[in-house]
Each structure stands twice: as C-alpha cells, then as structure tokens.
C-alpha cells in the first residue's frame, strides 16, 4: 500500500498547489539553463550557419561580433589570391536603431557579398533570398516585419523579400540581411548637413596647405563626394569570409593570411570559441550562479514544505509506530512524497516552460542533456529535502498517540 500517494490524494488541493509552486521554481531553474543555451546559440548561430572556414578581421581584433573590425574592401581580392582559397566574401555587421510605429527598432545589419552571397544559406521561413543588388532585405521574424513591407533605412527604402527564424546577434538584436553596398550605406549614412560640414572642413584644410594653393583642382575636389577623392580610403567592411578548396588544409591557408601584418585570421571554430568565451562567458557564469542559488532555494522550500507535511502527520506516524510499522514504512511515506512532489513539480516546470519560454524576448533553448541533469538534481534535492521531515518523524514516540 503506497501511503505517500494516498496521503497526497487525500490532501489533493494542497498537494496540487504545492506541486505547482515547486514546479514554478523548477521552471525558473530550467529557464536559467535554457537562457544560457540560448545565449550560446544566438552568439554562434551565424558563425555556424554562414559556411566559412576562415574569418579575416582587423589586426588584433576579435572579429565582427565581439568588437568592431574595419578592414579595406580590397582585402576580399587579396584573400582570393591566396593559394587554396575557393571563395572570399566581404561581410559587414553593424547594429542600428531606428523608430518604427513610435517604437525603437534595433536591427543588426548584415551585409552579404553580392552576387556570390545572396543569403541562400539563411533559414528562410517565407519569401526568397536577395534577388537584386539594391533595396532588398531579408528580415528575421522577430523584427515583426512582413513580406513586401517597405522599411526606410538611411536615405533609401528597402523591401522585405525574405523572412528568417531565430537569427539574432550575440547581444540579442534581430538580424536583417542586405547586399553589402546597402549595408554600408546604412552603416555610414550621414545627414546632408554633416556632409556639407565635412566638405567645408576639407575645403578649409585644403586652403591651408601649399597643394591647395598650387593645385586649385584639389580645392574643387574637396567640395565633391568623398568617393571622388583618391587620397581617402574606400568604404570599410567588417570581415572577409574564406572558404578553402576541397582537400586543402585550412590551417595552411590560415597561416599564410596570418602572416600579413594588417589582419588577424580565425578558423570558424576559433571565431566560435571567441564568441563563447568572450561575449557569453560572463553571462554564463552569472546565470550559472543564479541557477545554483535557485536550486538551493528550491531545496530549502521543498524541505520546509515536506517538514510541514510531516508535522501534520505526526499523530498518524506515532500510530504507525504503535502498530509496529518499521522505520522503512515511515521513511518511505515521507521520501516517496518528496520524490513524487519533485517529479510532478518537474513535469509542471516542463509543461509550463514549453508554453512560456517561446514568449520570452530572447531565445530559451532546452536540450535533453539539461533536462536529464535537472531531473537528477530534482531527485537529489527531493531526497535531501525530505531528510528534515524524516528526522522529525523518526523522533516521534508511539506514546504520542495517547496525547
């Protein structure tokens, strides 16, 4: 006869409420683990999906996601010339914030190297990849933009032609993909007044030097667009993505590019590791500690609940002892109830989590390994939590039936 289940059935309402309470606590523990997994996945999603063997970035920087990287656009051609390189693609990544319907709209703008890269590798849930070199964009569904919607960014208007799912930057901002030139236009957009001021400053600087006096055309040029001034550098990109030829050792190509004094180069795994150990690491530790605290709090609360449930049954436990029940029967009553409470709380946590986690603004990823680990922890804290109640129950004298 299972006394624990019968007692729980008898006090059904209280048991259900207690289970829900414990379940909500466990859901928080589960969610913390899921948020951490989500952080890692968000941080590494693009690196994992973009299908590049090597990432070439500005010297001594940690790539386009961990920190700002600026490299000249012609680096794409230099890399392509390295023996063993199959393709090289320019890549731009920057985050902008605009207003949409009175609400802030944060977008991580990713520039794809048209026409080699049209975003055909993206996980599209609707629409298509980029079909023209300008004025089209692919947006993540979390931006809540619809297919065909027009979005004004910088001085141009872009049409949403594709929708992706689950693509956000390590900082949690939703991604949108543009052709490289459009991404740069968005990134380096300046107001008309800023352009005019810059030209005036250039004119003033040109007037102050001898070259300006001896070559009047230089002064005239300084009043024109910056792209017409040969002395100025071309627009910059964030990284060059390299795919090596089949059968070629990526390490060999990496060592060649790494010998250049103006760039750093990382393997795809290296870039991934940089993201995990850099951007996510502190969040991971923070979440890990918070998760640990929640487990301890859950254990303490479960112990108090089980102790209270045991106190309610002291008279019955004394009667059981009077009837000659072995300690195992009494221990089983309390421990089985603890494990039942933990197990049902775990199921409640899982069910509520499945419904609630997708509503969170950032990704919550629950993987089977974490679920098994948490199940083990729940059994552990259930057993530990029951010890207080068991100690109390074992100290009860049968003579207390008479009181």
């Amino acid at each position, binding site marked *: *006869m299972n*006394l624990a289940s*019968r*007692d729980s*059935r*008898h*006090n059904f309402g209280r048991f259900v409420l207690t289970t829900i309470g414990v379940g909500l606590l466990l859901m928080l523990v589960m969610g913390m683990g899921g948020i951490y997994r989500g952080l890692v996945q968000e941080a590494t999603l693009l690196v994992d999906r973009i299908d590049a063997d090597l990432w070439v970035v500005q010297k001594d920087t940690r790539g386009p996601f961990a920190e700002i990287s600026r490299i000249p656009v012609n680096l794409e051609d230099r890399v392509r010339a390295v023996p063993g390189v199959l393709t090289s693609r320019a890549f731009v990544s920057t985050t902008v914030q605009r207003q949409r319907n009175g609400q802030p709209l944060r977008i991580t703008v990713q520039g794809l190297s048209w026409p080699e890269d049209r975003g055909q590798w993206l996980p599209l849930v609707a629409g298509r990849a980029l079909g023209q070199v300008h004025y089209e964009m692919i947006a993540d569904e979390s931006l809540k933009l619809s297919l065909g919607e027009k979005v004004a960014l910088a001085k141009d208007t872009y049409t949403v032609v594709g929708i992706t799912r689950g693509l956000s930057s390590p900082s949690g901002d939703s991604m949108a993909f543009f052709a490289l030139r459009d991404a740069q236009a968005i990134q380096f957009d300046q107001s008309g007044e800023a352009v005019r001021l810059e030209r005036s400053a250039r004119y003033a600087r040109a007037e102050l030097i001898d070259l300006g006096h001896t070559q009047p055309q230089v002064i005239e040029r300084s009043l024109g667009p910056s792209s017409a001034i040969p002395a100025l550098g071309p627009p910059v990109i964030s990284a060059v993505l390299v795919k090596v030829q089949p059968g070629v050792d990526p390490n060999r190509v990496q060592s060649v590019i790494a010998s250049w004094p103006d760039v750093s180069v990382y393997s795809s795994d290296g870039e991934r590791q940089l993201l995990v150990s850099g951007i996510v690491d502190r969040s991971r530790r923070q979440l890990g500690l918070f998760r640990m605290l929640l487990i301890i709090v859950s254990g303490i609360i479960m112990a108090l609940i089980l102790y209270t449930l045991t106190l309610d049954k002291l*008279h*019955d436990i004394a*009667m*059981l*002892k*009077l*009837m*000659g*029940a*072995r300690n195992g*029967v009494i221990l089983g009553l309390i421990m089985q109830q603890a494990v039942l409470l933990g197990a049902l709380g775990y199921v409640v946590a899982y069910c509520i989590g499945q419904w609630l986690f997708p509503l969170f603004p950032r990704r919550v990823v629950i993987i089977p390994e974490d679920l098994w680990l948490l199940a083990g922890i729940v059994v552990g804290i259930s057993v530990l939590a029951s010890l207080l109640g068991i100690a109390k129950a074992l100290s009860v004298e*049968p*003579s207390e*039936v*008479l009181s």
Partner: protein
Amino acid sequence: MSTGLGSGETVLQAEHLTKVYGSGHTEVVAVRDATLAVARGEIVALLGPSGAGKSTLLTLVGLILQPNAGRIAIGGETVFDNHRTRVNVRSFRRRHLGFVFQKANLIPFLTAAENVRLVMEINDHTHRAATRRAMELLEYLGVAERADHLPSKLSGGEQQRVAVARALANRPALILADEPTAALDSVRGRQVMELFRKVAHEQNAGVIVVTHDHRALDIFDRTFEMEDGRVREAVTVR
C-alpha cells in the same frame, strides 16, 4: 482462530510493575508494584479514578513505555525483566498486540478497509490475504458496507468498530483498550463493550479494557481497580 503465540493459558503476566515519572521533588509514582494476569479468552476491566495509573499500566503492558521495575510476560514469553526489554518491542507489538483508544486514531487518508489492511501489510501479509481478512473483520464487526469510506465519513461508533477490526487484524494474543467508549453514547458504548467480549471469547484473545463506565461492568469476566498506582482485583460483578 489462533493468536500466533504459545498455547499457555495465561496470555499476560505482569508482576510488580512500577513506573515513576520525574525525579526528586517532581517524582510521581504512576504505577506501584502492580501485578496482573489475564488468560486467553478473558476480558478484564481496569477501573479507577482519573490519575490512578490505569492508562500508564496499559502502556507498560503494551510495551509503549518501559517500567522502572517488574516483569512482563506475554504469551509465555518474557518481554521485560530486570530493567531490560528482552524483545524488539516494535516487532513484538506488530505481531502480538492490538490497541484501541478513546479516539479511533484511524489514518485519515486511508479508507476503513485500508486502515485494517495496513497493519497486516506492515506485518508482511500479502495484499490479497490482507484484503480478504480486512473484509472478514469489517463484516464480523458490522461495518463492511462502510469499507470504502474514509474515517471522516464514518460515525464515532463506526470509527471505533474499524479501530477494533484493526486491532484484531494480526490475530493478537492481547488487546489493550483505553477508554474505548468514552466518546460514544451509552448505547453505542455498550455495543462496543459487547464487541470486545465477543472478540475475547470467539477469537481467544485476552482483552484489557480501561473504563470509567460502571454500567457495562456485567460484560467483563473480571474487574481490577486501581488507586494511587496500586492494582487490586475487585469482586466480580456478574
């Protein structure tokens, strides 16, 4: 029906039992040199005013409390002697003793049948055997139709009958009842007392009933009176 002990005529032999609570100025002698013997199939009453030591004597022979001195033998087996318990008391209680109290003390989350079954399952009976015997006992005590009800749905008299069934479940040699009718009206109280007599005679168990109810004394085979912790056998009323 067998009680599971030896076939000696005397089921309880308590000799020179003494129980002292506290020490020094707070010392109270609850039972003083008490000697008592009960035979199989016999029902005896233990009478006396409040504080006379009746319940304490019952807890001593029920192996709930340990005497300071004296000897207790149940079913011919010495269970306490020379300041030492000679048996595993919990195991011994489980196999050889049955208890009924003023309150039925049924486990509230078990049905009447489950309350009876529980003591047998604790004593390693199979589920099937325990279920069969529980129903037999509830039938015997006239509460079979209430077998599936929780204690909270039973009347006081019904609860007490279930408690008696539970006390009988393991076929004990000795049943100890402490004021089992105190919470019942006179009619139901008498019914319960008659039930104990029936149990003693038909189940061949010794029954000791602590009671204040002098109206039911005709039911008992012998009567003992206690005062200031001392026991003496009274003149048989019947």
